[in-house]
């Protein structure tokens, strides 16, 4: 086995400096095939050094462009060149950043704040290698074969959009160490070798696919990108074909950071894969040297396992109770995306400024520009002829709005114990909501039904009055309360707001979904079903269950689990703690919204 410039033994713990340099070299070899890298870390010398290294390794003539945060469609995709059009009196198209970066690299600033819509435009270009424009009366199709460097400065919860991460081979975290200086001086020879590589041995593809499955990676892009990384690694190391070490390296760099679960323990994994992957028969180039003793999937899986981020386990564990935040994060992404589609500006659109919209002067002039000669302007008065159809109005950004819905159990059992205390806690929360300019709503359930006592409002006074006057007594129709909450949450979401539910109950359900006293077992089953429905509605991670029972019951915990909600027993939870929990959840929701918006 030839020694690669950056030496990596399969299964060894990664050295960040050398690894970062290796990623730069691989990406520079095949930026288009690998899609790019999500580079996580604060701006600073480490990042600058890495970018400089990448730039040095790329062919000198390769373009290097930067996408600013909040880039407009016109600049990204291309569109009408306004000065050129005015000058020439005919349509002149302007190339966008994507087309300009063709054959090179596109840097994406603040990728963690990237709007979903922009991410999908980039994804489309990465998929097809071209950028198609149907805008401003133009129809263009330009090549845009490029690698993307998504600069991710996000905090804990912020990540670039999944649609983009899925298409970038490397997810690299820079931890301050500068990239190893041992990076190769030139990649010319390696580039030539990459072009001449023969098709990969079936065993290599099988190993990569099996590893992806073992790590719980669903997308098929992952093994494909890993295969390309392995090919680039082989070329970099001076090999004529992909070998086990290359596949192991690719698994470590490409697959391990995508893992959503830990691979099954050694023995089980071996059996499973032996059965599934059919160990390679007679693939001379696949398993030479030190790896000969093990089957290829084992080597590859071992390498990936060794590189699994140490916090993965903690992450997965932490994700479990707060439902859905783990792998896909569908819980909070759903509503956030929905809201983003409504609230976020998509630039400008044709519209009447008198209808209460704000006029965008530049865009209006841009729309009017090509028509000037036709409209006969410029002749006599040299005035610009702007017609009604040219008007472009701004689409305003609407800040993420949250509606906190209090779902209060006002049944006899709850009233007896501590309805007053619950009211006190709710009042504290109300104050917090007010500080955040949230809207609040109040649903109460008792007797044989649930009632929306206070439709969503910003009025703190009304909310407080409503809460104070809350009558108590009767059975506990928990399922009906949850159903009412679900309906309200769905309405709020449709209107672009993010619902946050605070459920205050003692969990002693005894009224069925039909509103009849049907025994505890039936009532509890109905409540659990309603809880799961609520969670499916996309409320996971946006519900808090405050247990008002003097001694918390197991059922309340089950319900919290069904809801994907934290369970806060009131006796232990002092009101301040409760308030902090709500604020934390709300902050996470807003952060999720930010990442999506």
């Amino acid at each position, binding site marked *: 086995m030839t020694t690669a410039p950056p030496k990596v033994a399969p299964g060894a713990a990664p050295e960040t400096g050398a690894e970062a340099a290796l990623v730069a070299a691989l990406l520079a070899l095949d930026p288009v095939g690998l899609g790019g890298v999500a580079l996580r870390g604060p701006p600073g010398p480490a990042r600058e050094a890495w970018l400089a290294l990448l730039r040095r390794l790329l062919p000198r003539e390769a373009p290097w462009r930067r996408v600013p945060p909040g880039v407009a469609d016109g600049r990204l995709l291309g569109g009408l060149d306004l000065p050129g059009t005015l000058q020439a009196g005919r349509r002149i*198209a302007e190339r966008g950043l994507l087309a300009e970066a063709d054959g090179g690299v596109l840097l994406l600033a603040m990728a963690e704040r990237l709007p979903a819509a922009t991410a999908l435009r980039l994804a489309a270009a990465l998929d097809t290698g071209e950028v198609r424009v149907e805008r401003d009366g133009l129809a263009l199709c330009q090549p845009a074969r490029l690698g993307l460097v998504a600069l991710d400065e996000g905090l804990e919860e912020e990540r670039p959009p999944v649609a983009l991460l899925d298409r970038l081979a490397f997810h690299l975290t820079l931890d301050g160490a500068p990239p190893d200086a041992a990076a190769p001086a030139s990649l010319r020879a390696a580039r030539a070798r990459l072009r001449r590589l023969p098709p990969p041995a079936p065993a290599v593809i099988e190993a990569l696919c099996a590893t992806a499955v073992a790590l719980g990676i669903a*997308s098929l892009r992952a093994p494909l990108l890993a295969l390309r990384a392995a090919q680039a690694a082989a070329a970099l190391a001076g090999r004529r074909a992909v070998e086990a070490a290359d596949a192991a390296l690719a698994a470590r760099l490409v697959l391990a950071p995508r893992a959503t679960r830990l691979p099954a323990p050694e023995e089980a994994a071996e059996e499973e894969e032996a059965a599934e992957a059919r160990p390679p028969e007679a693939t001379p180039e696949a398993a030479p040297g030190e790896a000969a003793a093990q089957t290829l999937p084992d080597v590859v899986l071992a390498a990936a396992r060794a590189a699994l981020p140490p916090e993965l386990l903690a992450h997965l564990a932490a994700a479990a109770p707060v439902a859905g935040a783990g792998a896909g994060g569908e819980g909070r992404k759903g509503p956030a995306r929905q809201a983003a589609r409504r609230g976020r500006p998509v630039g400008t659109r044709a519209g009447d400024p008198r209808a209460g919209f704000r006029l965008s002067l530049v865009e209006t002039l841009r729309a009017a520009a090509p028509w000037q000669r036709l409209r006969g302007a410029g002749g006599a008065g040299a005035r610009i002829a702007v017609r009604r159809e040219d008007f472009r109005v701004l689409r305003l950004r609407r800040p993420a709005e949250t509606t906190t819905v209090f779902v209060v159990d006002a049944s006899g059992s709850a009233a007896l114990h501590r309805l007053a205390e619950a009211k006190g806690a709710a009042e504290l929360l109300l104050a917090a909501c007010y500080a955040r300019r949230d809207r609040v709503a109040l649903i109460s359930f008792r007797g044989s039904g649930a009632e929306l006592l206070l439709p969503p409002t910003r009025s703190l006074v009304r909310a407080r009055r409503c809460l104070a006057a809350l009558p108590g007594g009767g059975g506990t129709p928990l399922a009906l309360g949850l159903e009412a909450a679900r309906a309200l949450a769905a309405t709020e979401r449709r209107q672009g707001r993010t619902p946050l539910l605070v459920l205050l109950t003692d969990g002693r359900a005894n009224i069925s979904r039909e509103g009849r006293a049907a025994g505890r077992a039936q009532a509890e089953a109905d409540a659990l079903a309603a809880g799961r429905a609520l969670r499916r509605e996309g409320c996971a991670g946006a519900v808090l269950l405050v247990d008002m029972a003097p001694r918390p019951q197991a059922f309340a915990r089950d319900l919290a689990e069904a809801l994907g909600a934290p369970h806060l027993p009131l006796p232990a939870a002092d009101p301040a703690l409760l308030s902090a929990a709500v604020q934390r959840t709300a902050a996470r929701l807003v952060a999720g919204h930010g990442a999506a918006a």
Partner: protein
Amino acid sequence: MTGPVNGAINGAAAHPPPRRAAAPRPARAAARAAPKEAASGRRTPYPFSALVGQEEMRLALLAAAVDPGIGGVLVFGDRGTGKSTAVRALAALLPPMRAVRGCRYACDPADRAGCEDCRARRSRGALPTHSLPVPVIDLPLGATEDRVVGTLDLERALAAGVKSFEPGLLARAHRGFLYIDEVNLLEDHLVDLLLDVAASGENLVERDGLSIRHPARFVLVGSGNPEEGELRPQLLDRFGLSVEIRTPEVLADRVEVIRRRDAFEREPEGFAALWAEEEAATRQRIAEARGRIGAMATPVAILEAAARLCLALGTDGLRGELTLVRAARAVAALEGEAAVTLAHLRRVAPAALRHRLRRNPLDEAASTTRVERAMAEVLGA
């Protein structure tokens, strides 16, 4: 490896070998004028027949190709499963169509109505015709409304001062397919517009001082990932068939996807040649099915079964029933049968009905399961 390539999994487009050192371009060099149909047709599409698995999606697309009246296909599912690849690959399978020569909407010569131009020309004598590939038009993200519906031809307006209509994507999709990737993220007003035109078969343009109507009959195909956002529920049942697509679970299938993809990227033409025979056979199947579907017998028992199934599921309106029967007929035609059977009905029922169910918050079963359950109850095991 030959060309460094990035494409959607399972296909999409292949690219020429790596570019030689391109001369650095001035940063904002203007691509002069508007190259209308920029050279994108060169690229070899991934062959439809080379897709691995995903039977339901393939069947739905083929059925829509046989009978456009089924009314569009919605493909929703996991990332990287070849949704867009399959739709884009469909273009190569469609048998060419006859069209009026010189007609900008590619009117069907057999269609008495046609566009205004064709009607005027027809009154003066027989129309010349030619053969054209069926259009499969991609609606790119960020497309503006003027390009979708069509607008005043600026070039002609500026150069000659003539007010003339420049057809948009809807006109180009006439008699073919209009594909919207990430349909769930398309702006609401565009989705409304597209669905409206798709349903009426006519595009009405009232803008920039123009008043134009032209035929625009196309099959709407949408795809998306539910994690990015749901489609508005009132739009769901405007699609004839709805397909759920998942990542293949079997390892061997996954390996095969990657292997074919890699082979395709190395040598797109060579790979396509390997599949040319199967592609031709499928094309032939579609053509024959189209010929057969007119005379397809649909026994009363089948109509009854469809009605009972829809009743059991409580689907709203008659659209579900109609689509179900039409899709079953198309599948029967594809399989060379002379009559529709219950087996055909069963195969298409999930796709035809799963997006028409009323949401029952307390029924946890996925809609597919509900359709299957109803089938077991109504049609027997």
